[in-house]
């Protein structure tokens, strides 16, 4: 081993980075952006789940439990009537509602209470605080019922999902789309850059091809590949992983296809801003990771700090993920206005990117 020769390699490497300012910037900026976002998301998400309480108890004890729930820091309680509960779960304004039945006080005196707990159920992480808060308020109940041990048997009902619905089902619905989006994006951006670096793009530009024809041709080619991949992912997710699905399989496939088309066009558009495959790969942490963090895949958008919620609201992946979950977890179909919005936003995003990719194509050539 020659120290001199090793030093030559090390020096050559660092000299290269000195000229590639963008890589250097990314090397030091990207970790701060990603970690900062993560920290902000995790620390900022202190908003407790919204829970409705309908106290129908004719006796005094229901009010005590309702007060106990009210003072719990785990959940945010609003008083509702039991009849409104279902609608509020559906429109997403509540994650759960608890009904204390008319004979609640008598149940407690008899030593066995069975309050109804209605859970929205699509986000597994939000169920636990509701149950915990209820359990805690039951402890204060026991002290009021002299000399008796009150057993607590909540009647849990799920709007979506169910008792067997787990983390994989919640994340799986989002990941089925994300996997396709991510891989298609990477393949497109790299192969479009190949076109540039091997000189064939210059030839295409000197041919009668219109810019729009190049972009749409690319889109169709990669979409064919992406659809095959999407079908494979879907079959694997449903048949092998057995991810919970309430929706129409064709609808899931349609949403996946929209995401793939969006990814293709994002790849084409962003390839205009990279001069090498090396720089293109750097777009992954900068473009994909924040989108994954902010799209609600991991942290529900509703629990994000207000400023980030706004940012999530303009990212297309947020709508795509929401749409996938609505279909698979809630069984949404095209009559749902939320799914119309989600699909519409992703489709609109595709159109904007096709236009953007087409206009930037020539500019970056000279």
């Amino acid at each position: 081993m020659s120290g001199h020769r090793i030093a030559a390699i090390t020096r050559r490497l660092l000299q290269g980075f000195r000229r590639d300012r963008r890589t250097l910037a990314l090397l030091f900026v990207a970790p701060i952006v990603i970690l900062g976002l993560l920290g902000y998301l995790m620390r900022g998400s202190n908003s407790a789940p919204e829970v409705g309480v309908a106290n129908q108890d004719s006796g005094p004890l229901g009010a005590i439990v309702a007060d106990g729930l009210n003072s719990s820091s785990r959940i945010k309680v609003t008083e509702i009537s039991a009849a409104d509960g279902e609608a509020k779960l559906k429109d997403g304004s509540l994650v759960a509602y608890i009904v204390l039945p008319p004979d609640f006080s008598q149940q407690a005196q008899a030593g066995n209470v069975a309050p109804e707990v209605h859970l929205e159920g699509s986000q597994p992480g939000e169920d636990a605080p509701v149950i915990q808060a209820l359990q805690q308020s039951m402890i204060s109940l026991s002290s009021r019922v002299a000399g008796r041990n009150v057993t607590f048997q909540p009647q849990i009902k799920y709007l979506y999902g169910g008792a067997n619905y787990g983390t994989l089902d919640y994340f799986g619905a989002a990941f089925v789309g994300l996997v396709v989006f991510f891989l298609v994006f990477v393949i497109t951006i790299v192969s479009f850059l190949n076109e540039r670096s091997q000189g064939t793009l210059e030839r295409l530009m000197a041919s009668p091809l219109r810019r729009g024809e190049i972009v749409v041709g690319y889109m169709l080619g990669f979409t064919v590949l992406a659809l095959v991949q999407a079908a494979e992912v879907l079959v694997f997710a449903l048949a092998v992983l057995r991810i919970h699905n309430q929706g129409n399989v064709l609808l899931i496939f349609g949403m996946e296809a929209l995401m793939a088309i969006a990814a293709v066009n994002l790849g084409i558009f962003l390839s205009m801003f990279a001069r090498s495959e090396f720089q293109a790969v750097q777009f992954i942490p900068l473009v994909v990771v924040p989108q994954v963090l902010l799209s609600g895949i991991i942290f529900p958008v509703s629990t994000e700090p207000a400023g980030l919620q706004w940012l999530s609201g303009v990212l297309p992946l947020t709508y795509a993920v929401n749409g996938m979950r609505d279909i698979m977890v809630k069984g949404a179909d095209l009559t749902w206005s939320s799914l119309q919005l989600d699909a519409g936003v992703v489709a609109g995003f595709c159109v904007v990117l096709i236009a953007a990719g087409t206009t930037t194509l020539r500019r970056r050539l000279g």
Partner: protein
Amino acid sequence: MSESYAVNVEDVSKSFGAFKALNGVTLRVRQGEIYGLLGPNGAGKTTIIRLVCGLLEAHAGSVTVLGQRMPNVAVLRHIGYMTQQAALYPALSVEENVRFFAAINGADEGVKDALELVQLYERRGSVVATLSGGMRQRCSLACALVHRPELLLLDEPTVGIDPQLRVQFWEAFRRMAADGTTMIVSSHVMDEADRCQRLGLIQYGRLLAEGSPADIRAQGGSQNLEEAFLALAGRKES
């Protein structure tokens, strides 16, 4: 006047940032002529070619090709452009590459003729990534002329090609010119210049001299083209 020329470059200037690549260049290429663009590396030859096929836009002056002011997409189907590096799809076969460039130029016939012209018909099934540099260059040429363009732009087409094949290339060029194809060939190899009907000598983004090889010899005062060129270059500099 300008209609009688296939290519008319009129007092064109082009800069890239602070670098002035072309500085008031005027040159005219007649139809069916083989026009040699000569000059050292970095003289501005490729810039002229890219202006002619509309990849670049002049900052000053005008470029007219086949009667149309460039850039103009409608003219492009009549232009064939062979880039300096063989720009091909390495994962496709020779024939697939040629067929692709035929298709985007709206010509689906002529693939076999083009492959035979560059003597790659036997190798048409070979994947480009496995070919030698010279074969890639030939495949690239086939891609440029498969749609039988009226104007063929060849940016250093014979780089990396053995002398035997170079002779065949030039025979093919001459045949095409006789059929009415106009050609602009850039080169820094002086023995190729003699095969052109007219030459433009370029240095530092300016046209030093223009004329037939005999004219250039006379202007440079030497029987040797290379010496004539050096003499003309030296005269301009002093």
